[in-house]
């Protein structure tokens, strides 16, 4: 346990990128892109989440078991939301 898992430099780079994406998200938010606004906002949030989970939370460095645990929560959320929204989307077919 002598070596830290992630170097300070990586943390700093991640931090800078996160702030950059936040600024980008906010700036893009001012432009009216129709329904793309939501896609861009949530998509960039997803990128930020991956960066935080990967570097700050060491997700890119952990064992397979732990990575599966990380992905499981997200995967199950996607199951829940997609199957429910399918119902709502197909009600007016």
């Amino acid at each position: 346990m002598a070596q830290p898992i992630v170097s300070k430099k990586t943390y700093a780079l991640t931090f800078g990128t996160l702030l950059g994406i936040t600024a980008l998200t906010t700036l893009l938010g001012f432009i009216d892109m129709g329904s793309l606004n939501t896609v861009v906002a949530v998509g960039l949030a997803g990128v930020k989440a991956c960066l935080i989970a990967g570097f700050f939370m060491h997700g890119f460095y952990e064992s397979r078991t732990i990575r599966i645990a990380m992905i499981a929560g997200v995967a199950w959320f996607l199951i829940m939301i997609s199957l429910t929204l399918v119902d709502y989307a197909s009600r007016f077919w």
Partner: protein
Amino acid sequence: MAEPLALILREQFHAPEQQRETATLGMWIFISTEIMLFGGLFLAFSVYRMYYPQAFIAGSADMNIALGATNTAVLICSSFTMALGVHSAEVGRRKLLNLFLALTMILGAVFLGIKFTEYYLHYLDHRVPGPGFLFPSADPPKAEMFFLLYFIMTGLHALHMFVGEGILFSMILRNRAGSFSAEYHTPVVLAGLYWHFVDVIWVFLFAIFYIEGLHLHKW
């Protein structure tokens, strides 16, 4: 060197590495349950966003982007200091760990301060759902749904922030008591995981509540 092995290894484990791995796995499972907890709210949000697109975008346009963006930046900074804190723990620098934990706590408090200022402004604007709700659009009841979900989701997030502050405070106390070392600092790592997770949730809350209707914001 800190305590001897016997003191930091609980009796059900046979090696410190096993103990660390188990604790990390446990924390990640806990985070998965938290994802599902917030997931239910995100699901409700998506459904009503689909039902009432205009009202939700109008509600989002009504948010204070300056405070929201600042808060996001504050929280990202706190995640960075938390990460550095974990790093200091890993190399066994206790004073530095203390400093970063304290910084993270302060940034967390700033976030909560801004958040509650925002709540107060919503209150002044009559945006709190209930009998006194006012919204300058054709469809107040639907905007009310937006604000209700906003208050529940950010409120639950704020609750998690309070818990996080408590955890960080206990980490500081334990660090001052000399519990952590380069060999044993699992609780700091776990506290960090929790803190980062709460940050991730906010990143999504920021996107759906503040950014979606930003282009319609009236200055």
